[in-house]
C-alpha cells in the first residue's frame, strides 16, 4: 500500500528534516514581510526550497520537486533583486509553502503527493514570467478561509488583472518540465569535458573565472526538471490565464491544512487516525547518546563484577571483604542506573522551539484574515521538554494562540482610541521552573470580565445563581473551560464556538499539567500552563495510612514533622498547627480520601502547591523513591495521578494533591474532629 516500500527510513528522515526546514522557512517568511530586502533571509529561504527539492527528487516525489522548483526560482529572482516582493507575491509564496506542507502530509501517510493545485502552479509561473497575478485584496484576505466563511468586511473587490498587451519575456520554463529523462538531457557531459579540458590548470583557477565567450550564458530558468516520471504540469502558455483569483488559489492551497480550517475545533480526545504514523523518529544530539552508551557500558562492567561476587558467595565466601565489595557494587549500580535513567530521559528532551516555529505563520495568516496586525513574540525556544509532550501540546497551544488573535486582541483600527499601539502583541513564552515547564500565552488585548463570564455561564445554564455568587475571580475565569461555554453570541468562524477550551484543558491535564487564567479587562489575558518536566519518572515520598502506602510527589514536600494532637488547635472551625510561628491548616489524609480514620495521625508532611501550603496528616512513612509512573489508562479515580510499583513488588497509588485539595472547595480547612477515629470518640 505504501508508495515507498524499501525507502521508509529514508522517507522518515526526509520528513523530519524537511518539515523542520519548512517551519524555518515559514518563520523566515514572516520575518521577510517585515524586511523584504534582507538578502540573508532571501538566500536562506531559497536554499530551503532548494534542499527540499533535492531530497524530494530521491523519493521520486515529482510534484513536490516541481512545486519547490518553481518557488525556488521565484526566490532566485528575488534574491538577485530581479523582482521585488509585493503583498500579492507574498501570499502566493505562503500558499506555495502551504502546498509543500500538504504534500509532506501526504508523504507521511505513505503516498506520493499528487500534483499541486494547478491554480497555484499557474500563479507561480505567471509570477516568474513577471506577470504579477492580480492586484487583489491583499489586506484582510481570508487566508485560512473555507468556502462557508462569510467574506470579511474589509475585502476589496477582486479584479482580474488585464493581461499585459506585450509580453516580451521568454517562457520561464522549458516545455520539458518533468518530462526529461537522462537520455533526453543535452550533452552536459560533453560540455563538462570540453570546459574541463580547455581550462588549462584547474589548480590555478581559484577565483571564479568569467564564462568563456564561446559558451553563451543561459537563463537559469531554462531547466529540465530531473524527474524520471513525466509530470502532468501543463506546458506553459506564453500568456498565463489566471483561472482563479489569488484568494481561490490560496484558499485551496491553505485550506488543506487541517489546523488552518476555521471550523477546526481542536482535536478529539483521541489521536487522529492519520497521525498514527506521525513523527515516530527523533533527532538526538550525539553527545547525549554517547552518554547513554558510556553508562550502559559501565553498568555492564558492574554487572560482571556482581556476577563474579555471586559465584564467590555461592561458593561459600562471605568474609567482610566480599560483602564490602558486594555493597560497593550494588551502590555503584544504583548510581549508574539512575544516571542512565536521566540520560535516557534527556534523549527524549527536545527544544520547544521546534513546536513554536509553526506558530508565527499561523498567527500571521489568522491576523490578516481578521484585519488585525499581530506580532507573535516567542520567548524561551531553547527550553527542553519531553517529546511526547511536544506533540500533545501542539493542538492546545494552537488553540490558545488562535483564541488570543481572534478573541483577545482588538482590530488594529480600534486600538489607537484605546491608547494602544496599532500592532498588538501576543507572547508565547516557555521556561523551566524547578521540575516544571511553564508555558505562558499572553496578549495585550481586551481582557475578560469575570462578571460577564459569570453572567454568560448563568445564562447558558452551566452554573446556578448560588454558584455564581460564590465564585471568586479565578473561578470565574475557569468557566471558559466548561464544555459548551462561549462568550461570543455569534461564534467566530475562526476559533470556533467554545468547544475548544475544554479540550485544551483536558489535553493539558492528560499531561499531568494545569492551566490558569489571569485577565484584566482592557489590558489583556494570560494563560499559564504548568507541566511536569517528564512523564516518565517522578520522585515521590511514600507515606502510610495503617499498612497502606501512598505516594505523594516529592516536589511538593517541604518538610516532615511530628504531630502532637494536643497542639492541634481549631481556629475558626479549621484544624491548624503552628509551625515556627506560622499557622498552617492540617488535612488528615483519610479525610481527603473519604476514609474513616483508624487511628490518630502521628506525622505531618508540610506541603506546598501553587495555591496552598498545608500539613498533610498521616500515620507513618516508608521513605522516598523514584517512581516510574504507570498511568491508569481509562480508569482514573479522582485524586489519583497514577500508580507505581515498589521494589518489593507492591503497587502504590500516586496521589494528585491538587485534585484532592479541590475536593475541599478552595482549601477552607477541616474541623479537628476529623482527626479522631470514631472508635476513639465512642470510647
Amino acid at each position, binding site marked *: 500500500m505504501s508508495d515507498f516500500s524499501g525507502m521508509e527510513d*529514508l522517507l522518515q*528522515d*526526509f520528513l523530519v*528534516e*524537511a518539515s523542520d*526546514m519548512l517551519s524555518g522557512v515559514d518563520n523566515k517568511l514572516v520575518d521577510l514581510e517585515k524586511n523584504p530586502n534582507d538578502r540573508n533571509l532571501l538566500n*536562506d529561504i531559497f*536554499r530551503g526550497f*532548494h*534542499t527540499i*527539492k*533535492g*531530497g524530494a*527528487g*530521491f523519493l*521520486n516525489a515529482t510534484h513536490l520537486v516541481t512545486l519547490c522548483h518553481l518557488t525556488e526560482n521565484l526566490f532566485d529572482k528575488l534574491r538577485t533583486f530581479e523582482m521585488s516582493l509585493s503583498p500579492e507575491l507574498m501570499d502566493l509564496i505562503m500558499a506555495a509553502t502551504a502546498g509543500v506542507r500538504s504534500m509532506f502530509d501526504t508523504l507521511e501517510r505513505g503516498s506520493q503527493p499528487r500534483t499541486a493545485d494547478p491554480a497555484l502552479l499557474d500563479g507561480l509561473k505567471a509570477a516568474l514570467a513577471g506577470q504579477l497575478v492580480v492586484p487583489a485584496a491583499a489586506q484582510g484576505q481570508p487566508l485560512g478561509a473555507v468556502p462557508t466563511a462569510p467574506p470579511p468586511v474589509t475585502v476589496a473587490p477582486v479584479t482580474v488583472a488585464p493581461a499585459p498587451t506585450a509580453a516580451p519575456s521568454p517562457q520561464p520554463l522549458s516545455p520539458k518540465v518533468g518530462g526529461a529523462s*537522462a537520455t533526453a*538531457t*543535452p550533452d*552536459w557531459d560533453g*560540455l*563538462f*569535458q570540453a*570546459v*574541463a579540458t580547455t*581550462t588549462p590548470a*584547474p*589548480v590555478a*583557477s*581559484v*577565483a*571564479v*573565472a568569467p*564564462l*568563456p565567450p564561446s*559558451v553563451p*550564458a*543561459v537563463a*537559469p530558468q531554462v*531547466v*529540465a*526538471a*530531473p524527474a*524520471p516520471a513525466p509530470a502532468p504540469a501543463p506546458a506553459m502558455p506564453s500568456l498565463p490565464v489566471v483561472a482563479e483569483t489569488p484568494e481561490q488559489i490560496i484558499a485551496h492551497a491553505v485550506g488543506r491544512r487541517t489546523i488552518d480550517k476555521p471550523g477546526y475545533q481542536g482535536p478529539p480526545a483521541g489521536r487522529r487516525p492519520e497521525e498514527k504514523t506521525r513523527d515516530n523518529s527523533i533527532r538526538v544530539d550525539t553527545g547525549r547518546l554517547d552518554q547513554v552508551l558510556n553508562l550502559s557500558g559501565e553498568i555492564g562492567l558492574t554487572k560482571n563484577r556482581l556476577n563474579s561476587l555471586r559465584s564467590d558467595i555461592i561458593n561459600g565466601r562471605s568474609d567482610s571483604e566480599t560483602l564490602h565489595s558486594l555493597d560497593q557494587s550494588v551502590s555503584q549500580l544504583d548510581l549508574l542506573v539512575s544516571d542512565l535513567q536521566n540520560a535516557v530521559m534527556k534523549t527524549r528532551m527536545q527544544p520547544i522551539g521546534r513546536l513554536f516555529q509553526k506558530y508565527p505563520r499561523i498567527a500571521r495568516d489568522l491576523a490578516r484574515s481578521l484585519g488585525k496586525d499581530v506580532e507573535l513574540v516567542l520567548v524561551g525556544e531553547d527550553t527542553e521538554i519531553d517529546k511526547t509532550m511536544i506533540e500533545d501540546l501542539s493542538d492546545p497551544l494552537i488553540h490558545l494562540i488562535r483564541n488570543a488573535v481572534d478573541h483577545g486582541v482588538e482590530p488594529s483600527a480600534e486600538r489607537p482610541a484605546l491608547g494602544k499601539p496599532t500592532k498588538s502583541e501576543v507572547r508565547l513564552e516557555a521556561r523551566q521552573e524547578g521540575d516544571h515547564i511553564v508555558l505562558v500565552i499572553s496578549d495585550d488585548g481586551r481582557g475578560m470580565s469575570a462578571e460577564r463570564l459569570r453572567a454568560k455561564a448563568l445564562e447558558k445554564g452551566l452554573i446556578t445563581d448560588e454558584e455564581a455568587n460564590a465564585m471568586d475571580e479565578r473561578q470565574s475565569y475557569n468557566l471558559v473551560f466548561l464544555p459548551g461555554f462561549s462568550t461570543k453570541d455569534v461564534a467566530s468562524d475562526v476559533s470556533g464556538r467554545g468547544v475548544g477550551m475544554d479540550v485544551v484543558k483536558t489535553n493539558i491535564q492528560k499531561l499531568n499539567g494545569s492551566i490558569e487564567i489571569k485577565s484584566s479587562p482592557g489590558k489583556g489575558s494570560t494563560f499559564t500552563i504548568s507541566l511536569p518536566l517528564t512523564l516518565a519518572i517522578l520522585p515521590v515520598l511514600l507515606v502510610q495510612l495503617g499498612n497502606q502506602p501512598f505516594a505523594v510527589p516529592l516536589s511538593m514536600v517541604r518538610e516532615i514533622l511530628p504531630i502532637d494532637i494536643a497542639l492541634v488547635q481549631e481556629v475558626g472551625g479549621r484544624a491548624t498547627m503552628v509551625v515556627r510561628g506560622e499557622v498552617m491548616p492540617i488535612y488528615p489524609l483519610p479525610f481527603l480520601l473519604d476514609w474513616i480514620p483508624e487511628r490518630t495521625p502521628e506525622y505531618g508532611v508540610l506541603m506546598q502547591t501553587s495555591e496552598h501550603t498545608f500539613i498533610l496528616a498521616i500515620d507513618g512513612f516508608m521513605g522516598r523513591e523514584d517512581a516510574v509512573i504507570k498511568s491508569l489508562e481509562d480508569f482514573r479515580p479522582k485524586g489519583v495521578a497514577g500508580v507505581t510499583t515498589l521494589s518489593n513488588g507492591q503497587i502504590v497509588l500516586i496521589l494528585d494533591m491538587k485534585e484532592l485539595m479541590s475536593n475541599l472547595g478552595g482549601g477552607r480547612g477541616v474541623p479537628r474532629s476529623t482527626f479522631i477515629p470514631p472508635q476513639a470518640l465512642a470510647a
Partner: protein
Amino acid sequence: MPVDHAKIKFLVVDDFSTMRRIVRNLLKELGFTNVEEAEDGAIALQKLQAGNFEFVVSDWNMPNMDGLTLLQTVRADERLKTLPFLMITAEAKKENIIAAAQAGASGYIVKPFTAATLGEKMTKIFEKLGWT
C-alpha cells in the same frame, strides 16, 4: 596505482543530513564503506586538512561555505589540490557545470541519481586517476 575500493576514504559534504545518508547508502551499494560526513564547506575543509581523505563528494548549495568555494579552496591548497572531487548539483544548469569544471571538479552529478549513475561517474574519475 591500483586501489582497494573498500578502503578509499570518502568525505560526503551536504547540509541536509537526509542527503548525506542517501549518498552514503549509494556509496555503500557500490562497495565504498569508508565514509565520513561534513555539514558544510567550512567543516569539510577542516576535516580535509586534518584527515587523509582520498575522495570528496560535495553538494553545491550549502550555508557558510558552498561546494564551489570548497572546491576552489581545495584546489588552491598545496596538499589537497589533487584530491578527487565529485560535485553534486541540483540541476543541469549550464553555467553551474561550467563553473564546476573551471574550478577543477573531477566530475559532477545531477540530483536525483542512482547508484549506477554514481558508479559510472566514479569509474570515469578512477580511470583518469589510474586507480583501476
